């Protein structure tokens, strides 16, 4: 088989079909490192991945390391990552191996920011997409949360358990296929760190630009701005017009001590259909980045 020129989706599908066939007991919580080692030995005998190891990388999530001989590769992941984050990091580095190792023969080091998707570097984005597709296959995910659902953090959290990925990774995966107008916002001390909109939200002008310009303050009337982190706000509070994007909204917010970040999910009603909505070319993900909505997981 010639794997030359395979894109990230093709790679992810390839492994998912393989896993579906083998159907191991923990189908969706498989050992990513073992998969990388087992499969590359057969596919790329000239330069397989032979080691996946933990080490203290001091703020770096992971790295793809070539042997001095250039005949083998290793994946190194940083200490202290939660299991879900760790799997994503390993999958991310595996993506670099499959997609980028010819271009970067000296290896790749991924900072924390690069693996949680706030980066604009194309190769990092591709590695993140590959990891998402590999760990959270769309056909199965859609069975857990239907495209018309308005999930709360518990519903998405049960998906992050199912696929053993971080909550943020699961939220971003869901946002990519949902038909709802929803936006995910991460914040600290009253300002937005980064945010990501579903397609339907984005098309209707609901997004928060954080890559350029001054920091964006959280809306004054929101629960997250007032730091009301109660079980009630986590399971959802309804706001009238004038709090979020000047529309009626349902807000879910909670505070993560571990990441010192507030996580907020906002659901809006469906947009009024516009008669002229046809014919406007849609932005691709990259252009969308350039506009400054923010990006992908852990």
């Amino acid at each position, binding site marked *: 088989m010639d794997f030359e020129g395979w894109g990230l989706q093709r790679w992810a599908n390839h492994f998912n079909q393989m896993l579906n066939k083998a159907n191991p007991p923990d189908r969706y919580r498989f050992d990513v490192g073992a998969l990388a080692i087992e499969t590359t030995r057969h596919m790329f005998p000239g330069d397989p991945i032979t080691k996946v190891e933990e080490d203290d990388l*001091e703020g770096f999530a992971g790295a793809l390391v070539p042997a001095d001989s250039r005949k083998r590769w290793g994946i190194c992941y940083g200490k202290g990552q939660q299991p879900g984050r760790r799997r994503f990091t390993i999958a991310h580095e595996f993506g670099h191996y499959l997609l980028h190792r010819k271009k970067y023969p000296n290896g790749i080091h991924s900072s924390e920011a690069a693996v949680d998707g706030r980066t604009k*570097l194309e190769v990092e984005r591709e590695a993140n997409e590959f990891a998402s597709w590999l760990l959270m296959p769309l056909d199965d995910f859609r069975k857990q949360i239907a495209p018309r659902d308005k999930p709360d953090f518990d519903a998405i959290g049960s998906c992050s358990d199912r696929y053993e990925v971080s909550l943020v990774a699961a939220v971003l995966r869901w946002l990519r296929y949902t038909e709802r107008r929803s936006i995910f916002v991460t914040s600290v001390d009253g300002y937005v760190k980064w945010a990501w909109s579903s397609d339907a939200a984005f098309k209707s002008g609901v997004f928060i630009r954080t890559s350029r310009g001054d920091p964006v303050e959280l809306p004054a009337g929101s629960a997250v701005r007032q730091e009301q982190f109660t079980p009630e706000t986590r399971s959802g509070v309804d706001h009238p017009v004038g709090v979020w994007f000047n529309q009626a909204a349902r807000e879910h917010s909670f505070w993560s001590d571990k990441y010192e970040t507030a996580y907020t999910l906002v659901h809006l009603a469906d947009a009024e259909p516009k008669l002229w909505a046809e014919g406007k070319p849609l932005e691709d993900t990259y252009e969308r980045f350039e506009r400054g909505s923010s990006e992908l997981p852990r």
Partner: protein
Amino acid sequence: MTETIRERIKALRKKEKLTLDQVAEQAGLSKSYLWELENRDLPRPSAEKLGGLARVFNVTIDYLQGGEQLESAEDKAFFREYQSMSPEARARLRRMAKALDE
């Protein structure tokens, strides 16, 4: 682990139990700029701006800077990422590269 300027400033503010508003006012900075200093990789801020913060926390400007050159997130390339990795972490990756051939 080398602390970045972001971590330094945030840690000092938390230690003194001060809000963004309080520190910004005392240091003569805008609140949103202080938030950016704590949460974004800004190109090296001016000594003048850091001077105000150093006064508030009663530390040197050198200490605030954490002894680390920060790049802007936009123009980070891998080799630069590698350079910003601590020497210890780099040495660990080199050891791994060697061990792969054994």
